[in-house]
């Protein structure tokens, strides 16, 4: 396993040093991408290894590339062929649509938008796993103010320092929803990258008292933090789907078999599985490739 990782990095070194690498065989090389978020990386890596197990050559240059602002244009302009996407956020943040708590509707709406992008992009089946925006507090804060729901934050907002995602002021499901639905004033919030180490560190260091984290975030469990309930259902369902360029689907020969590779994987990723994969990488400090391959083996996807 370690050797294969070394070889992969070695191959990218060769690219750097000017040598050309060419994919062998008749199957096309597939360029896999993902945002720089560990959970997305590990899902992208499961796609990559499953493709390799099925005889495809994979180019991983796009994995961990940056944020959605970089990734979606990269997909539209064929710099990458496929990527895992959080369909609710992809719809709302990526393309200005309105995402809901219904994943089937989010998928349909995202598909409608993507039909006209970059020569056509297909949204494959989504995971049962949901990763949604969560507001999290330290245990002692929850006890002190008896916080259980997002509504409880509003009642104590004068005493609580809130940390929110950097895009919050312009994100309709963030600042606007918090204000309109819960009456929480976000103008004084500390803005940090969502679902990230700075956000978790800030909560840990008591720089903030309420943090916007991802519901699958391992730091919530590790630190014994309390996730408050979005009792008025403002946050979209963020199930994960692979987004695949149609021109790649046209090249793979047996399109149904190709799509099945991904749909089988997605079907097996429920919320605890996703949280565990994320945990193994972020807290267990295991290498993403090792985490992905162990999970694929356990699930019988690769031998």
């Amino acid at each position, binding site marked *: 396993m370690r050797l294969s990782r070394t070889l992969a990095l070695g191959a990218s070194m060769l690219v750097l040093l000017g040598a050309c690498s060419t994919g062998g065989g008749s199957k096309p090389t597939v360029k896999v991408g993902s945002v720089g978020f560990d959970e997305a990386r590990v899902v992208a890596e499961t796609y990559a290894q499953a493709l390799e197990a099925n005889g495809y050559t994979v180019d991983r240059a796009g994995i961990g590339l940056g944020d959605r602002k970089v990734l979606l244009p990269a997909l539209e302009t064929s710099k990458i062929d496929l990527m895992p996407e959080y369909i609710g956020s992809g719809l709302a943040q990526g393309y200005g649509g309105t995402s809901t708590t219904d994943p089937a509707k989010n998928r349909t709406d995202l598909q409608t938008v993507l039909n006209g992008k970059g020569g056509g992009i297909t949204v494959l089946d989504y995971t049962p796993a949901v990763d949604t925006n969560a507001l999290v507090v330290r245990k002692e804060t929850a006890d002190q103010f008896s916080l259980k729901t997002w509504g409880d934050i509003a009642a104590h907002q004068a005493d609580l320092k809130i940390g929110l995602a*950097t*895009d919050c002021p312009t994100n309709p499901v963030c600042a606007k929803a918090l204000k309109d639905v819960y009456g929480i004033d976000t103008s004084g919030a500390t*803005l940090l990258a969502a679902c990230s180490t700075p956000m978790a560190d800030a909560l840990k260091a*008591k720089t903030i008292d309420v943090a916007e984290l991802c519901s699958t975030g391992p730091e919530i469990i590790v630190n014994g933090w309390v996730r408050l309930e979005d009792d008025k259902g403002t946050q979209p369902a963020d199930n994960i789907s692979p987004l695949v360029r149609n021109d790649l689907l046209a090249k793979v020969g047996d399109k149904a078999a190709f799509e099945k590779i991904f749909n089988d994987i997605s079907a097996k990723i429920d919320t605890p599985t996703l949280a565990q994969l994320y945990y193994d990488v972020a807290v267990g400090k295991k290498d993403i490739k090792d985490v992905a391959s162990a999970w694929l083996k356990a699930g019988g996807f690769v031998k």
Partner: protein
Amino acid sequence: MNLLTATATWLADPANWTGAGAIPQRLLEHVGLSAISLAVAVAIALPAGLAIGHTRRGAEVAANLANIGRAIPSLAVIGIILPITAAIDPQLGFKVYPTLVAMIILAIPPILVNSEAGIRSVDPELVESARAMGMGEGQVLAGVEVPVALPVILTGVRSAATQIIATMTLGAIFGSGGLGRFLVEGIAQNDDGKIFGGVVLVAGLALVIEALFALAGRAATSPGLRRIDVNRQGSLGVAT
């Protein structure tokens, strides 16, 4: 061209010029944080550089330390310092101190190297004749060496200031104020005008500061030396 329009529109929008988190506030924060880091760096590096240049002892050590300071990635400094300072002060220790420390480390090398090289390059005969006139070591340094070396020293401070202004933006990732907020928020909010408006402000600020230092450098050059244009010589940074 789209980008230019977006940037110009953002910069011209009056809403971005008034209120909390608007351009004047961020600009002030940026200047303030930069000035603090620069002042601390000067307080550390200038006396050290002068002493080394004057005594001609420890130049090798200083050059190596300066090189280490240059080579340490600011991001790594912030990542390592943050848990420590945040434990001391949850607010400033998280949002401000780590970036200040990284900026001070960034600013020390050019100031140290230039003040040492500036003093060392003063004509030894000049120094000897000052001593022959009965000046003490402190007087020689303050009365002869520093005035002659001032343009070179100022150039070191100038390049430290420019580097701080450009690199201070990293702090916004950790919630610090300053112009970096426009870059980080612009990237997250998918707002090109905001990103490049922020870039224009950072670059503009750096150029204004450069110009001020250039003026100060000219004023500080003693008339007898002016035609040699020591100012440009001073931009070497590394003493050979």
